[in-house]
């Protein structure tokens, strides 16, 4: 599904974070969003997710974004797990909201937990997991939801190189064909995963790195 951001302006009362920002993402495109700390990357993702009020327009598959929807899932930069649910029950949550029957959703959630390397930790509460483990539970939860647009805010920030590599493989495989906005500070990761890199900055410059990417991927 294609995503179009037009003249997006987001402010938090005392400061305007994004102003007149535009971005077009084609169906199934994987766009990496980069930029200095505090430039508005998370804000952009939250706007697309429908979680902050904005001026301008955001459309997904021609439909204007007015609020959150299950089609646009967000992996939060901060810990977005529900602390009273165990790991597996956190992953089950989107399935439960979609009305998947109880036994089926547990099986699927366990499978996703396995794919992020957390078999054996399904009954742990978030507070009993390490930072990187919580990030992976969040990832599993979002993948289980199978949204048509995925928004990821530094999903691998707390992972060691090896785990990160296997998560990258997972994402590449699962999100193939899914429109994705992916925030990362890791240049290698950007190059590896992104079809394109958008750099937010003081002037919200967009830099095409297609050439580089094509060379690397080849």
């Amino acid at each position, binding site marked *: 599904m294609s995503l179009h951001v037009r003249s997006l302006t987001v402010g938090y009362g005392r400061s305007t974070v994004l102003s007149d920002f535009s971005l077009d993402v084609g169906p199934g495109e994987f766009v990496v969003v980069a930029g200095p700390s505090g430039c508005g990357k998370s804000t952009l993702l*939250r706007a697309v*997710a*429908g*979680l902050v009020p904005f001026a301008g327009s955001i459309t997904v598959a021609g439909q204007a974004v007015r*609020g*959150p*929807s*299950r*089609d*646009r*899932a*967000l992996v*939060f930069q*901060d*810990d*977005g*797990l*529900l*602390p*009273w*649910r165990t790991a597996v029950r956190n992953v089950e*949550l*989107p399935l439960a*909201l*979609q009305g998947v029957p109880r036994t089926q959703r547990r099986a699927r959630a366990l499978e996703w937990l396995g794919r992020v390397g957390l078999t054996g930790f399904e009954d742990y*509460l978030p*507070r*009993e997991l390490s930072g990187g483990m919580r990030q992976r539970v969040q990832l599993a939860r979002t993948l289980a*939801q199978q949204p048509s647009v995925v928004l990821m805010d530094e999903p691998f920030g707390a992972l060691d190189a090896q785990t990160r590599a296997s998560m990258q493989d997972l994402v590449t495989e699962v999100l193939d064909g899914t429109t994705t906005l992916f925030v990362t500070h890791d240049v290698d990761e950007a190059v590896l995963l992104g079809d394109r890199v958008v750099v937010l900055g003081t002037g919200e410059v967009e830099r095409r790195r297609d050439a580089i990417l094509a060379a690397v991927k080849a």
Partner: protein
Amino acid sequence: MRWVLRIGSLAVVLVLWQLLTASDTRAWLRFDQLPTVVEVVERFAVQIGVAEFYHDLGASLGRIMAGFLLAAVLGVALGVVIARSRWLGDLLRPPLEVVRPIPAIALVPIAILLFPTDEQGIVFITFVAAFFPILVSTRHAVRALPTIWEDAVRTMGASTRQVLFRVVLPGTLPGVFGGLSVGMGVAWICVISAEMISGQFGVGYRTWQAYTVVDYPGVIVGMVTIGGLGYLTSAAVELLGRRVTRWLPREALR
């Protein structure tokens, strides 16, 4: 060991009371006219042999439970609604806030005139007593809820109702259980006012009756009974609260 300390502390209080009252201590506070522990225990021993005592217990427990359960359901529901809907909050808060401080005894005539039977009036007063603490605590708990959990389930496509049941209710449980515990306590502290209507039985009724004939050991037996029942019911609420809020980080430290 912990139980020894717990029971020991109650024992110390009793011994202190006995000493102060038996010696007719009069140092600013005046213990000289209060009944001694021994007098109260003697009366208690008589009371627990009387069938009427258990009838009173049962009646009061039933009334409190009915009023409390009603209050728990309505208090949590309205507390959430008021905290989350600006519109309904503006609409419902003013009348509720004005009614909230109205004394339980002042409701006695209203309850009698309003309700067809005495029992309904009594349950109504215990309901009102428990309702407001639960409402206010829930409202404050909802206000203090972090926003990220709600954001998370909304991007999973949760409806307003699902947000309420999947995030707001579980997330506010620690605060709500604080309110339920307080509400249970307040329901008991209003049991005498409520049972003034009764005219026949109930622990609160019996206690007030003892006072109208200035029978102090009787009053204290009533107070101890209410204290005991209140303790048990609050402890049940607290226990349940602890069970459903095991996920709190501080629970790992116990």
